[in-house]
């Protein structure tokens, strides 16, 4: 498969091996997508456009479908997230008696971050998330793939200090610098991310052998008539202020939703 503008990243041999192990496990390639997204997230540190294209390639789905997945599930790490991503549980059980607010205030006091913000150097970010399922020991915080209960007071402070020291940074570096609001929207991918020979937008690839969709209900899958629109003249990788693209449903910068935009 060739891409006119090739995807710059490739999966490591270990990653490919893991993928091929899963091929025996799952009934079809599409169903591996959740795990493949975890795999590329782990390989590349976050899920960016290239990672999404690779995941789409591996699982035989359209990139648009992968974008839909990544924006639906809030825990996938995106490029806008900091290297150290603090997720603070804000659901009722943790928030009772102001425990969530305490933890958030501590993070703000150390890193100058409000929920939904990242530091300008991209090292730290902070966000509120919904229940992390350890409700008896609030406040619960997840930092990337580490899970902490009763994360408050000196314990939380010491932990942030440890991270700061590991990055050769000091709290003062961030307190005076402005923070950045995280933009978790996906960019519109250029057409060259489509599979070679792919005719229909959103169609499954013909080599995705799926015995259970093929018969029965799947037989109703008449060839779709959707035609790929001709490439637009304006590059779509980033919304241009004042261009005709604003107001077409992609939202302006002001309505970026830092906790993932699958609602509303």
């Amino acid at each position, binding site marked *: 498969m060739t891409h006119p503008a090739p995807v710059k990243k490739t999966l490591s041999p270990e990653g490919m091996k893991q993928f091929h192990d899963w091929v025996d496990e799952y009934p079809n390639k599409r169903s591996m997508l959740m795990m493949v997204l975890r795999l590329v997230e782990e390989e590349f540190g976050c899920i960016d456009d290239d990672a999404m294209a690779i995941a789409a390639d591996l699982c035989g789905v359209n990139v648009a479908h992968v974008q*839909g997945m990544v924006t*639906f*599930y809030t825990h*996938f790490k995106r490029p806008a997230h900091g290297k150290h991503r603090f997720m603070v549980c804000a659901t*009722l059980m943790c928030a*009772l008696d102001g425990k969530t607010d305490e933890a958030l205030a501590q993070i703000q006091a150390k890193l100058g971050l409000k929920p939904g913000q990242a530091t300008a150097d991209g090292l730290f970010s902070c966000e509120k998330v919904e229940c992390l399922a350890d409700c008896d020991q609030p406040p619960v915080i997840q930092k990337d793939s580490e899970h902490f209960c009763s994360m408050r007071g000196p314990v939380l402070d010491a932990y942030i200090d440890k991270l700061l020291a590991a990055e050769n940074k000091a709290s003062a570096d961030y307190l005076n610098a402005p923070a950045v609001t995280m933009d978790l929207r996906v960019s519109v991918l250029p057409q060259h991310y489509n599979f070679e020979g792919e005719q229909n937008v959103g169609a499954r690839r013909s080599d995705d052998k799926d015995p259970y*969709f093929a018969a029965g209900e799947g037989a109703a899958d008449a060839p779709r008539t959707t035609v790929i629109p001709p490439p637009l003249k304006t590059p779509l990788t980033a919304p241009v202020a004042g261009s005709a693209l604003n107001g077409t449903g992609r939202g302006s910068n002001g309505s970026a*939703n830092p906790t993932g935009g699958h*609602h*509303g």
Partner: protein
Amino acid sequence: MAETTPPATEAPAPKPVVPFSPVLLKYIHEPNSHTLEHFLARGGYETARKHVGETDPASLIAIVKDSGLRGRGGAGFPTGMKWGFLAKGTGKPAYLAVNGDESEPGTFKDRHILEKDPHQLIEGVILTCWAIQSNHAFIYLRGEFILGYQRLEAAVKEAKAKGFIGEKSFGKDFPLKITVVRGAGAYICGEETGMLSSIEGGRGYPKIKPPFPAVSGLFKCPTIVNNVETIANVTHIIKNGADWHKQWGTEKSPGYKIFCLAGAVKKPGVYEVPLGITMREFIDVYGGGLIEGRSIKAVIPGGLSAPLLTPEMVDKCTLDYESLASLGSMLGSGGITVLHDGVDMMSAIYNTMRFYHHESCGQCTPCREGTGWLEKLAHKHHAGHAHAGDADLLADVAKNMRGRTICVLADAAAMPMQSYLQHFRGEFDKRVGEAAYVERGRSARDEITPAAKRETVAHGAPGVLDVGMGMDRV
């Protein structure tokens, strides 16, 4: 009125109290309880070895049916009956999907099984797969269970290496695969068909029922969906028999269950107790009573979506499906949260509604829009912007959300709102008009410009997230 003599035939004598010690959580406090050695040393996999490839699957289903085991994920549907619905002779493979998404806030029981006793779950999966004659089981975990995923994945590998699962499970002609899938932070994937959509590699959109998963589920094949705790129970019931299971609990809710206790109690945590004990006993004995100087304002009995219990209802309540249903609430997933008398109920309901608005998958309009309306109106009450009539509007929106969507998330959002309105209507009304500002010590005018209002209600809008997003300390 004349005195009536009691009828000659008394009601059947109450069940003798059988002492209970934890079954599912028996070993979780021991070090290395998650290892294969530990599990084998306490007789692990012996039940599966005895039955797989030997016992008639129908007789195993009969035992589970007879035991009266009810689904522990929330709905409480009888497990054996569910297994009986599995479509036969379709020519398609049958799947078992184990729901370890546990996304209901206030629930953290499956976490303990997955992290501290994963082999117990795997043995249950093996027995269940043999009983329903399925050769492939999926275990779906929520993305936050990182340690749970690592340990379960390792446990599956160990079981495979030992030959307990694989092409020939226990050397018998019974191929079995167990696949562990991780979610990534979507509440809706705790709904059974939403979870199936997620396993199939899509957004976690629930599907219309019927067809029920037992007829057309995962990959459009017959599928049984059970909770982690339910599956973990299967081994013990098959090992000890249906009567053993029925010696605890009530007639309609037999057995024992893991309850999670959070909130304003001295000893929050997970406790495995026989069904049918009183809520007071659970809170006072197991939970150690309320924290000093506080009393109960309300109790959320079964995860965030369960309607509230007031202190009077708590006194009447026992921990079984029927008692809670008779009080207009539900046992749900067994996540009990105690709200003390200092909790601002408007903060609590706003926080709750924000959760459901965030987690609505957006397929059905009544839910997608309704949860947004509930959140915004709850925020108005929380912030003191409410107008007279807003509480009625809340009741109207909540009423019109129920029963009109593909899955029950809309009901799950509407039920707590209705119960807050029912029991704490006075607090809603107190926040109407400017009086609320004065009471809360705020300037009457500084927050109610239309722009400020828009910003504060737009969930996730940058810079204003700390306005009422957590809980106010009262």
